[in-house]
């Protein structure tokens, strides 16, 4: 074989390799040109971590500029378990400085991971101490990230209004949830390039983010604290399942206090999350006799009755053949002035007054007072209540509505309607955020509401023995408090009204002639010595006003 033949043969074999080369080039084009996006995405997912750090959340202020909830700098502490050293020392350090149980510390330290959260919001002092001690002891692997912790400079209060913030900085209930977007701002986003050994190679700031906006509430920390104490004490004393107290600014409809008991305890892991909701906003009940004050306002406004007009009050009074009784069904009252019927809370009197108004007018007044629709208060989960359309009402429905049955209301609806009575007939939509609130509307004439307030004042005035003796529990001398108690039997599906299970409430305002404050206190199923609204909620009204005086919020009017 000649040299030329050998070279030709060699060239043939080398030429065959070109086929292989074409396959390699084809594959490169496939990977790099056609499948590039897919591989780039897979690579990014593998090589990069996205770290999202929340920015400072907006502060929630109360009335008077006191911060109720504010973010303070904290550390989010994590552990790189693979690069950790001296695990046993680390466990004891976590127990001492972070406050973990030794079991929890053990579980977090001995975990096969590059990343284990130790504490998502450790305060700076403890964090700095932890870092320093870890350094001194030669413990490696702890990671510190700057973050924020929600703190409550006025002490923990009003969580049923404020809500809380979750570990990822998200609002979980209340104002924190309703205004989450405003309060949160934009988080800072980092892209972290990691080697497979877990080592950070590069950190890139993708979005610097922005802090959240502040929010000013109408809530008055002093009043809130007073109400929380008073209602908690009431729930205990009257052995109620729960209770709430609302204080409104009579002229603006601003919610100054919205307290409830039991309330959410952030330090108790078993505290039920529903305690973060204000049940005065999210749940409905039959208002009972407190409703009579509102029916009375409508009747005075329509001039279908006068304060001193005598009305037959003996029971039973039959409506559509059904007997309607007074609360004390055995006592006969004869004919009483309307004002006395109101203060003695005589159902028979109110039924006749409502009959004079008729179904349509009664319904219209209730709608104008805000029943059957949301008040628009800035809390999540507000209930609508039940106010049937007038075409579905019978005369019996009208009669029962006159003493607060067959309708269902929320606490905030009832308080706002009392607000209209207090505010010279002008309904101010209740609101929690400074400067908000819906359109006010005139519900009744100033004269009619003044006259109605005067009647209600008589019920509490110890100088006039117009009302039930028990109503005077709500009075504090010198403040001109006026109000109406109510004790409603609770209705349950399929059982109707159940004896022994009551909603006891008291709606009030003071001073009666030109009110500054509207108060509503309600207890659910008081089981103590008395279940009557005046004996329970009425006493709490007095407790609240006395505490307001003590705190210097109000002073008696000596007139």
């Amino acid at each position, binding site marked *: 074989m000649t040299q030329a033949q*050998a070279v030709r043969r060699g060239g043939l074999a080398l030429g065959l390799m070109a086929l292989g080369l074409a396959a390699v080039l084809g594959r490169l084009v496939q990977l*790099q040109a056609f499948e590039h996006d897919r591989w780039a995405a897979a690579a990014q997912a593998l*090589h990069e971590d996205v770290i999202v750090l929340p920015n400072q959340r907006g502060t929630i202020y109360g009335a008077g500029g006191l911060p109720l909830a504010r973010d303070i700098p904290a550390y989010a502490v994590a552990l790189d378990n693979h690069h950790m050293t001296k695990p046993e020392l680390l466990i004891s350090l976590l127990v001492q400085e972070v406050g973990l149980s030794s079991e929890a510390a053990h579980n977090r330290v001995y975990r096969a991971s590059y990343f284990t959260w130790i504490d998502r919001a450790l305060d700076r002092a403890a964090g700095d101490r932890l870092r320093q001690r870890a350094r001194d002891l030669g413990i490696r692997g702890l990671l510190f990230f700057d973050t924020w912790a929600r703190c409550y400079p006025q002490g923990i209060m009003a969580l049923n209004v404020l809500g809380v913030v979750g570990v990822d900085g998200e609002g979980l209930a209340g104002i924190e949830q309703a205004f989450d977007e405003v309060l949160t701002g934009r988080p800072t986003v980092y892209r972290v390039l990691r080697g497979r050994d877990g080592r950070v190679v590069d950190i890139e700031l993708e979005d610097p983010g922005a802090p959240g906006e502040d929010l000013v509430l109408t809530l008055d920390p002093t009043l809130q604290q007073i109400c929380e104490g008073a209602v908690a004490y009431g729930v205990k004393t009257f052995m109620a399942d729960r209770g709430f107290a609302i204080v409104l600014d009579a002229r603006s409809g601003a919610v100054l206090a919205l307290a409830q008991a039991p309330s959410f305890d952030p330090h108790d892991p078993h505290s039920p999350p529903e305690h973060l909701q204000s049940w005065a906003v999210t749940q409905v009940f039959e208002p009972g006799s407190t409703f009579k004050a509102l029916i009375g306002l409508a009747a005075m406004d329509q001039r279908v009755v006068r304060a001193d007009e005598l009305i037959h009050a003996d029971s039973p009074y039959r409506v559509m053949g059904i007997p309607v009784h007074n609360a004390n069904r055995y006592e006969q009252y004869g004919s009483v002035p309307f004002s006395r019927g109101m203060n003695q809370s005589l159902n028979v009197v109110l039924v006749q007054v409502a009959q004079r108004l008729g179904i349509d007018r009664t319904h219209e007044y209730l709608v104008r007072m805000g029943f059957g629709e949301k008040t628009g208060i800035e809390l999540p989960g507000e209930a609508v209540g039940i106010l049937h359309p007038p075409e579905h009402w019978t005369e019996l429905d009208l009669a029962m509505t006159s003493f607060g049955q067959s309708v269902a209301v929320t606490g905030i609806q009832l308080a706002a309607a009392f607000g209209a009575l207090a505010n010279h007939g002008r309904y101010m939509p209740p609101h929690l955020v400074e400067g908000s609130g819906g359109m006010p509307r005139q519900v009744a004439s100033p004269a009619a509401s003044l006259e109605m307030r005067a009647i209600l004042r008589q019920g509490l005035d110890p100088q006039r023995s117009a009302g039930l003796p028990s109503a005077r529990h709500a009075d504090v001398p010198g403040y001109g408090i006026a109000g109406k108690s109510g004790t409603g039997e609770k209705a349950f599906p399929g059982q109707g009204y159940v004896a022994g299970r009551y909603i006891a409430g008291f709606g009030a305002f003071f001073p009666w002639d030109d009110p500054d404050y509207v108060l509503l206190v309600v207890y659910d199923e008081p089981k103590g010595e008395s279940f009557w609204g005046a004996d329970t909620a009425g006493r709490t009204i007095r407790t609240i006003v006395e505490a307001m005086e003590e705190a210097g919020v109000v002073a008696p009017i000596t007139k």
Partner: protein
Amino acid sequence: MCARLGAREVAVDGLQSKLLVLSTLLLWTGLIFVFSASYPLAARAYGQPAALLTRQSLGALLGLSAMVILWRIDYRHWARVDDILLLGIFAAAVATLFSGVAGGARWLRLGPFAFQPTEFGKLALILYLGGSLVRRGEAITEFRKGVAPYLCVLAAFGIVLVLQPDFGMLVLYAALVGFLLWAAGARLRHLCAAGALALPPLVGLMAVAPYRLARILAFLNPEGYQDTYAYQVYQSAMAIGAGGIVGRGLGASRAKLFYLPEAHNDFVFSVIAEETGLLGGCIVIGLLVGLVALGYRTAQRAPDRLGALYALGASFVLGLQALLNLAVVVGLLPVTGLTLPFLSYGGSSLAVSLGLVGLLLSVARQGASRKTTEATG
């Protein structure tokens, strides 16, 4: 070019300078990417990012010396010592089996240096086969006298390579032997018969060593084994794919951050493709193709049959090894462990690649001198 010089004083002609330019380009490209691909590993293992680059540079110096020596020596002299050389390399290869290096026992330690005898074996094998085949002459067309002796040589190396184990190198050796026999005039059916003879033991080996089977499985279903057998191949495809057309930029590979094992070594091309994209990858492949083409040109211009066989052998072994490595890296072949000539980390591999270029230069030089002689005489 320099016709006025005498036959023994011929200057560097066009072919030689092209060979020099291409191999220099490949050498520098290799050093750059060995550094880029190895510095995370070097920084972690030696505390010095350039540690592996330094070692590679030593290999380069050794290889350049070898290249110059081979270039300046008339290749015909090798015919006198080629069998002794091959025997020496074989002895060294056998010695690796007793060197006690855990895992892949491919290395032989010489003081502070470790080298891989079977890498040098490629060069020795070309020298031996070339000389021996020329000496054998027309007997090559017979199976027993022509083909069988070389099969015995191959089998001897084969046993060592299987024991090491270095399956990829065995494939390369076998292909090289087959190629040079074919070029020297062996009959195709003899070569096919030899191949058929080798098939059963190969299949047996595959069945015995489970990792080989795993590699085949991984090759057949890379997505399914992306976290196990096919991890390396999947990471390689990811690196290459993520590189796109123009790449992440020099030094910006992420695969080398320990996601891709052997990123600086067998899989250095993945890093090249990730950092410089399809464009850079094609340029590197173009350099390799150019080198093989120049090798073929050298064979065409060789002054004699021995020179032609040497040039063909050197071009073939560089080309095939590059092709096998690339095919593995892009996922077209199961993982073999072959390096990419000039570009992968490894002093022995680099030195031998430069040595092969030296052999090509030597043949080109003698070809040029013959032309000059013909022209002047």
